């Protein structure tokens, strides 16, 4: 019975294989069931990140400097539309859509899944948005959405304080490390992180906390159902209240940008590259930190156009440099204040008199005072009032460079401050030690020569400082306290009390002579008599500075070429520092006009005009904004106008 044997063999074999199938089913459905259950759930449940609203930045009175503007967007869902090009044509009747933009949408339709919304247009005006909504039922597949974009209402005016946001780069995402949720947040389309200024340094505080929601998706990624996660809601980032006064900041920007020389008929007014810092001398609050020209941070938010970036980068006025913090200038005669204090600490009395004949012989050459005919005989106050170089060359021969450096540091030069804004320059306060380090690779140049002290004594040579440092120096001279500048005055939970400023280790008498000299500069027909403040309650004491950029330039006959006849980039920098009122000081200011030729001509009047605005408002005396209790100021209720757009051509639709 061959057949029966074989048939039985096959039946048995088949049943054996059936057993195998059954065993496999047991493996999958009984033994490993839980594992597969998890994998099935992973398949269909996705965690979606909910992007938190970014914290807002306000000035000291609650005026918004960085906010989240509603962004009206038009989206298209391809699977709902039969004729995409036709629909786009319909939309373009309401919203201005260039053929290129329509093509971009069509390209994205090809690339993305049919149910993924594609952005057709964003930043719509309210009217256009309302029109699209009104037409909605007719425009199948066209959806509207209200998102948020970062908005800087003061545009370029506060650019260097606030900074800007941008899409996270690969480097930013790599820096997150193992935090998967943060990484996913950073990868959300449209998510922005701080790229510069306070937006960058306080990014973590401003960013807020991402929430999450669970969505059930099908195999194609389409969301079938959404389950909100009550315990993991997104939380808006913290508010920042700054020390800046937006109104005064705008005033300062306007003053700084004014041409120094009145433009002649039919001539383009000259472009100014300048910076100013105004500080409350008691609290250290930086009320104005202006740098002109600047850029519009709104341009960076959506990704700056290449052409604009290049023109900003190539501009000789350097609109991308935050000059109050990163501008490194020889302080010129403003440094004489430090030299004078150092000399007194070295035992020289303010009554010390020096005769200025216009020049002195030192080493192997003449040193020429800025005034060719000489100043005659001056005491210390007079030397400040007239900014006599010879007087300080005399002091330089009596005071050691290391003493000068030590005083300079004590008054805030050569230091950086915790403002939360990077790229601060420390400036240079030269000393023997400094020179040794600076020329570490060339030992033969490490020796300090007494002649170099002469240059430093009048703020030339190696010494450099930033406008912020000069403002701090002035505030410290005005108060005798170790004033620390600050930009943040409040967080979401309330106002931060200003840090205590301990007294500077100095004899008050040593400061009085310097303050007297500064008073004489403006109020007793000194070098900046034109920059005097008339208000008797707000008498301003100042010091001019004109610092050489290059070695002195001489013409063929050996005469010094006047600044006005030099090319712009060789002209002297103009500086002015001041505090007001002279009695009981409240505010300190420093102004630097790059290549402004003369401290008294270019910087002094600007400082005067800014200080006039500051003292007229006296912001420190007004109640400040407390984010924990106060409502922010509504833009519409501002007593002053917002800046006009810096680039009338592009930007918003």
């Amino acid at each position, binding site marked *: 019975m061959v057949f029966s044997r074989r048939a039985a063999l096959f039946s048995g074999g088949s049943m054996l294989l059936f057993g195998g*199938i059954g065993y*496999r*089913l047991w493996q999958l*459905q009984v033994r490993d*069931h839980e*594992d*597969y259950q998890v994998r*099935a759930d992973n*398949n269909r449940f996705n965690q979606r990140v909910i992007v938190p609203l970014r914290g807002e930045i306000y000035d000291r009175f609650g005026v918004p400097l960085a906010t989240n503007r509603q962004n009206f967007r038009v989206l298209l869902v391809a699977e709902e539309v039969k004729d995409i090009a036709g629909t786009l044509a319909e939309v373009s009747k309401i919203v201005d859509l260039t053929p290129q933009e329509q093509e971009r949408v069509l390209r994205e339709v090809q690339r993305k899944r049919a149910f993924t919304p594609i952005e057709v247009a964003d930043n719509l005006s309210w009217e256009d948005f309302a029109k699209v909504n009104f037409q909605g039922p007719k425009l199948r597949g066209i959806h509207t959405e209200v998102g948020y974009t970062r908005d800087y209402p003061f545009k370029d005016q506060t650019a260097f304080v606030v900074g800007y946001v941008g899409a996270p780069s690969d480097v930013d995402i790599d820096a997150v490390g193992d935090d998967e949720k943060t990484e996913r947040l950073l990868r959300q389309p449209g998510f922005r992180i701080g790229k510069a200024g306070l937006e960058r340094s306080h990014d973590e505080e401003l960013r807020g906390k991402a929430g999450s929601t669970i969505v*059930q998706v099908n195999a194609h990624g389409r969301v079938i159902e959404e389950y909100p996660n009550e315990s993991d809601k997104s939380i808006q980032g913290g508010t920042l209240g700054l020390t800046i006064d937006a109104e005064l900041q705008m005033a300062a920007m306007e003053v700084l940008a004014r041409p120094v020389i009145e433009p002649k008929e039919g001539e383009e007014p000259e472009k100014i590259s300048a910076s100013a810092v105004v500080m409350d001398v008691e609290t250290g609050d930086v009320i104005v930190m202006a740098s002109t020209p600047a850029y519009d941070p709104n341009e960076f938010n959506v990704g700056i156009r290449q052409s604009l970036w290049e023109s900003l980068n190539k501009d000789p006025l350097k609109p991308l440099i935050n000059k109050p913090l990163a501008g490194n200038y020889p302080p010129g005669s403003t440094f004489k204040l430090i030299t004078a204090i150092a000399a007194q600490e070295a035992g020289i009395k303010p009554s010390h008199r020096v005769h200025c004949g216009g020049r002195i012989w030192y080493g192997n050459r003449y040193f020429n005072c800025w005034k060719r005919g000489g100043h005659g005989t001056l005491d210390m106050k007079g030397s400040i009032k007239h900014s006599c170089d010879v007087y300080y060359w005399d002091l330089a021969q009596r005071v050691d460079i290391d003493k000068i450096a030590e005083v300079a540091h004590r008054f805030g030069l050569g230091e950086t401050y915790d403002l939360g804004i990077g790229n601060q320059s420390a400036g240079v306060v030269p000393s023997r030690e400094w020179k040794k380090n600076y020329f570490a690779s060339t030992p033969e140049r490490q020796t300090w020569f007494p002649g170099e002290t002469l240059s430093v004594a009048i703020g030339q040579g190696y010494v450099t400082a930033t406008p912020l440092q000069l403002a701090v120096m002035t505030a410290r001279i005005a108060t005798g306290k170790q004033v620390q500048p600050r930009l943040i005055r409040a967080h979401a939970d309330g106002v931060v009390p200003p840090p205590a400023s301990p007294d500077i280790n100095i004899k008050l008498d040593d400061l009085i002579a310097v303050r007297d000299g500064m008073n004489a500069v403006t109020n007793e027909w000194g070098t900046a008599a034109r920059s005097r403040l008339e208000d008797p309650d707000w008498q301003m004491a100042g010091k001019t500075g004109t610092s050489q950029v290059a070695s002195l330039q001489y013409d063929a006959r050996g005469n010094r070429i006047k600044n006005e006849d030099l090319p712009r980039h060789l002209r002297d920098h103009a500086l002015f520092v001041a505090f007001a009122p002279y009695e009981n000081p409240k505010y300190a200011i420093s102004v630097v006009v790059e290549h402004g030729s003369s401290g008294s001509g270019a910087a002094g009047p600007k400082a005067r005009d800014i200080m006039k605005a500051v003292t007229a408002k006296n912001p420190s005396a007004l109640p400040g904004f407390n984010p924990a209790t106060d409502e922010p100021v509504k833009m519409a209720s501002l007593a002053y106008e917002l800046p006009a757009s810096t680039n009338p051509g592009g930007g918003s639709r």
Partner: protein
Amino acid sequence: MNTLVLPDRRGGLRKNLAAVNWWLVIFLSLLAATGVATLYSVADGSWTPWAANHIMRYALGLVILMIAAFIPLRFWLSLSYPAYFFSLGLLALVPFIGEVNMGAQRWIVIGGFQLQPSEIMKIALVMGLARYYHGLDFKRVSNPFYLIIPLAMIGLPVGLVFLQPDLGTAILLGLSGVVVILLAGLSWRIVIVGAILGLMGVVTVIQMDLIKPYQIERITSFTNPDADPLGAGYHLAQSKIAIGSGGVTGKGYMNGTQSQLDFLPEMHTDFIFTIFGEEFGFFGTVALLGLYLAVFLIGTNIAMKAKSHYGRLVTMGICITFISYVLINTGMVMGLAPVVGVPLPLVSYGGTVMLTMMAAFGLVMSTWINRDQDTLRTSMSYYGRIN
């Protein structure tokens, strides 16, 4: 070669119906009902496009089964060679008038009906081979000379199906052919030699690049589907997740997340077992396997009881073809066999498989009804065999 055929027993319809093996009909109907229910779920609770059609096809299949059952076995015997050559002809037509579907030419359209000749061939080949061995003296079965014709009968359709290309069906076809030869009593020595030769043949085929890359990929992917979840192994990984997540009791009818959310491919045809497994769990799948096993055992029983050599060869061949469908299909969706495109008979949606399977079980039924008759009483070979 023609034989003397004795007149059939005459009987009324009632007598015939009484002779029908109703257990076989019941289990086949349960399988078809499982198919209908699953197809209804796959379509998200809709009779269209599959479930209603499936019912109609099964009804038609049942009619065909009954007609085939009442056709005398000797008539089937005489029809075997014509059926074989007819099917071979259809297969040969495929390259010329076939429809291309998913990169393979498998379908031809005749009178508005889509036909898959390779599926018809599976039954026709069994019939043809059974017919050959029915007329062959048992002493000659293991004579290599008499192996030439059956091997050619297998080789021709297998080659044609392989060229479509449909590797899965080609393998199944060859398998059922070889099974019939083995059932006929081929000596194991020759089987071993043949197996070695066959292995060498497979190696040659692979080395000559006759197998398309996607076929190799499909075959190799089942060994490690997780390595490339979105590529060749994606479907397999998803189908294992579906079956495994079903657990012991299943997610409930129409509640399979894997299937309702489109994670599974070809849910209404080759991967229907995964949806069933997801929704009905281990109890459901074991019960379904039980139904198949029941059909198989009923068929085997019929083959054992049949006196006709043709009848028992055909019945056993059909049963083994049927069960290899089930084994390969379930094995493939669970990662035990390569994904080769074999449907789950009577449950998967597909007209040709359904109707040929039902026709084949009609033949089995005919064998059952005529089990006491020997179709070739006068043949010399018959006496040689029973000794």
